[in-house]
């Protein structure tokens, strides 16, 4: 039988794995939102599938009212991490607390209190919007008013429409509505705007920003850098089961701030001679037609002056000059060597 086996490594807070052979009676933890502890806490989280180690000691905390982004390529361990937090998957080791519950042992209570928006939600084509809301409402111990929720998500006019007749954006709004049915303090949003057109995506972003204003704690996984930059207070980049870097989008960008990118376009090819090592410059590259020079610099202004000076000495005219700050995506590529959207 494929009944979920109890994890052999389930551990509680206050008990570290080292001490852990001794069986400790799990302390029943009643959640208390007033307590100032972080609603989501993850320490030394590990999870393997057979020989494959999907999560290798991830640690983070998400504070109340914070929007936290998880970025990473496919197979990085993002989904596994989130599913462990949602109580869908047992963990091998480490400590996890969501709203004071251990998802490994208290998944039912936990699920009653969190909201989840899956990447791909689907319903029977012949299910009406209002029926979906009523049905899911029956699963929770407390729910918000369905009518208010549908109005807020601009689905009230569509309440008698079949699910199969909704547009992509409407379907996603319904998924969000269902995630909000139990008025959750913690929300897990998995790729909430994937596959939507720009307008629908904008609407979803508006909604998430509203939720943030309501001081809800949100864990957002996304492929969209702009989404993370726009919505997240903090971002963690995951690759191969580990967090590579974590911080506010600005902080992360600043890790590589020294590496502003200067691009000079010349009006004729540069001569075939060695490019000098300008001050503070790294990774100097010349395009194949020898008309474009790209340089990473930790002190862009100084390097730029020297570059312009040198080009002028070669009696070559400048066609264009770009000075680029690195995006989160550049950071990501630089840190992982992978693209996010493969």
């Amino acid at each position, binding site marked *: *039988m494929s009944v979920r086996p109890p994890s052999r490594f389930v551990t509680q807070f206050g008990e570290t794995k080292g001490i852990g052979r001794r069986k400790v009676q799990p302390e029943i933890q009643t959640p208390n939102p007033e307590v100032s502890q972080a609603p989501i806490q993850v320490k030394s989280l590990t999870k393997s599938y057979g020989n494959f180690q999907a999560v290798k000691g991830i640690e983070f905390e998400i504070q109340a009212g914070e929007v936290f982004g998880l970025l990473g390529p496919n197979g990085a361990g993002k989904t596994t991490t989130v599913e462990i937090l949602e109580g*869908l998957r047992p963990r091998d080791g480490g400590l996890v607390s969501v709203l004071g519950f251990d998802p490994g042992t208290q998944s*039912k209570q936990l*699920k009653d209190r969190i909201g989840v928006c899956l990447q*791909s939600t689907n319903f029977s084509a012949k299910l*009406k919007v209002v029926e979906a809301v*009523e*049905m899911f*409402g*029956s699963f929770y111990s407390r729910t918000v008013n369905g009518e208010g929720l549908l109005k807020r998500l601009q689905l009230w006019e569509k309440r008698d429409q079949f699910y199969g007749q909704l547009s992509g954006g409407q379907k996603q709004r319904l998924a969000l509505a269902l995630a909000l049915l139990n008025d959750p303090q913690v929300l897990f949003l998995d790729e909430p705007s994937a596959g939507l057109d720009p307008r629908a995506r904008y609407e979803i972003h508006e909604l998430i920003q509203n939720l943030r204003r309501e001081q809800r704690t949100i864990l957002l996984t996304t492929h969209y850098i702009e989404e993370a930059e726009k919505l997240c207070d903090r971002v963690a980049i995951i690759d191969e089961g580990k967090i590579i870097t974590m911080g506010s989008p600005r902080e992360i960008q600043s890790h590589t701030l020294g590496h502003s990118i200067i691009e000079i376009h010349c009006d004729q090819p540069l001569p075939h001679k060695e490019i000098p090592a300008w001050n503070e410059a790294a990774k100097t590259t010349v395009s194949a037609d020898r008309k474009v020079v790209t340089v990473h610099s930790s002190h862009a202004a100084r390097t730029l002056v020297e570059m312009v000076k040198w080009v002028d000495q070669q009696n070559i005219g400048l066609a264009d000059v770009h000075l680029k700050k690195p995006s989160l995506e550049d950071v990501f590529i630089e840190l992982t060597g992978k693209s996010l959207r493969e």
Partner: protein
Amino acid sequence: MKAYLALVKVDLKLAFRDKAVIFFNYLFPLVFFFVFAGLMKAERGGTISFVVSMVLVMGILGNGLFGAGIRAVQEREMNILRRFKVTPISPAPLLVASMISGWVIYMPVVILMLGLAYFVYGMPIPARLFSLFGLISLGLLAFRAIGLILASVVNTMQGSQVLIQLFYMPMLFLSGATFPITILPPWAQIISQFLPASYLVTGFQGIFFRNESLSTNWSAVLALLTTMILGTFISAQLFRWEKEEKIQPAAKLWVLVVLCPFILLGGYQAHSREHLRKAQILARDLERSGTLLIRGARIFVGSGKVIESGAVLIKGGKIEEVFEGTDPDTKALKATVIEASGKTLLPGLIDVHVHLGVPGGFNEPGENHSPQEAMSRALAAYLYCGVTTVKSVGDPLDESLKLRTSINSGERLGASLFVCGPMFTAEGGHGTEFFEGMPEVMKIMALQQTVRLPKSVNEARQQVRELKAAGVDGIKAILESGQAPVLFNRLDVSLLQEIADECRIQSIPFVAHTGNLQDIADALKVGLNGVEHGSFRERIPDELLSIMAKNGVAYDPTLGVVEAFSKLSSGGEELLSRSLVEQVAPAKLIQTTKTFLLSEKSIKFLERLKPFGMGLEQGKENLVRAYRAGVMLVAGSDAGNLLVMHGPAIHHELQLWVWAGIPPGIALQAATYNAARLLRADNRIGLIGKGHDADLLLVDGNPLQDISITERISEVIYKGERINRPKLFEQE
């Protein structure tokens, strides 16, 4: 609770918005209902109950296996279940809601079907409505549980299609839902015992045909209940929310666990064959449930009256109506019509004197002769010849009772059997001589089964009481001293008196074999219901005949046996070469018998029978005189004796009577109504009258002019079934 209600509500709404659900649950059974009803001519009788049972089972199979199974896989495949996984709900409400909604969806079909059967086809509403709905619900929930478990152990839609079809197809075709199990080959009958649907089929038919309740079907009910609980429980344990969660191929073994009640039940039934017997009986009920109209026939009613042109309506195994002169409106009667102009309809014949355990001839020496087989074959032969009832006046008790049960239930097809079982005689008396050569152990057993040798008054009484308790329909005693050189000890008259008195107390008919006048006089003195044989040696005087007439004692002259014995030395060619004999008696038996009788070896054997074979003319004279004296005549053949073949013998007996001077109508009455009176069954058989069993013989011609016409058989109808006569001998 809130979640259960909400899920049922949504399940139902989705179901009623799904064209496939509507089609398979409502349209499909309706189409089958009308197709089957049309094919099986359901308007002509009880077939409609059969059609309803079939369509109910088909519907339950579809609703359970496809409704629950395919849908569960579909929701997983389409990632619908995933979303439920992140809510606090567990699999239980989802599974239970699926069960309940499946039930709610199906119930209108049941009501619609019963309504149509009632209003369109005139099916009576079953008396056990609660049991019917109970069994339907139980079947449906068990099959939904099987559907759920099938869905739980496959990974893909294709996988589920294959697995579900693998269950659906055999259950559709081998359970009796589409063809009766009884027409399937033996291996398929065994397989059917392992199919849950088979028990639903017989369960429904039992409720319809035999007013059975759930408790009659307790083993099937228990198996369905266990399957339902196991199926739901295990599918909750195996429940998967996402298609990405794969299951091991070995998990398919869980299906066997869920079906294990039926594996056990099937194993038991394949061994005991109880359920197959039940299926056989129900199939018989179906055959007997039709509406028949025989019209244009000359009707010999049985009691002497003749309707020159009339019609008989048969419904549900009984004679519903007898029409004289004008034909009834056949269209309105919705009956299968048998045109019988130029034919004569008689009550099924009754032979009141047979010995089933002996075959009327010789089998190949060394060939295994099984009395059980011989007895059931004999009953088939009687029915073949239009003899619908026989009275066995001396046969192994246990075998006779067993055979009577299986004939009465409908499991076997043959003439109805009235059993006397063992014959009362004296130690060393007539009836014991057949066992002389046997080894001691076998002899004791054989005597125990076929004779009673009371030595005291108490023993005589006790033996009658015991036989009555065992279920015999009558008692026969033997008064016979034999004739030199073959002499027998004769049963003491004081003991005969006790037997006769006890029979009166126990109210069972009592007859006695008599050999001479003294025997007849003694028998009449103690008081009895019938004299068997009378006497072939002496002329029965008027005094005795008038006592018989006055006391209503029946006289059974058994001329056939005495004629047969007189023809032994000529090889029996004349008696064995009659058409009806050749039709029913095995060719080998006839050949062996002829060969033996013409051989040297027979001389010593025939010597012993000689004294019995001298009195055909005396027998005829006694018969005619008894007729003139107003004695109630009954016809018995003593078949089983050498050259007296089971079945044809009674026809020949009647011919002997007519040749002796008895009017054909009187002879026929002796073999119908009078015989039924002797058996005390004239309220059921022996007459063509409203409410009587539809046991009928239709012959080509008029036996009232030519008695041998009774052998020209057009139709035999037994308990309302048109007998397929040649098939009678194909029974196992």
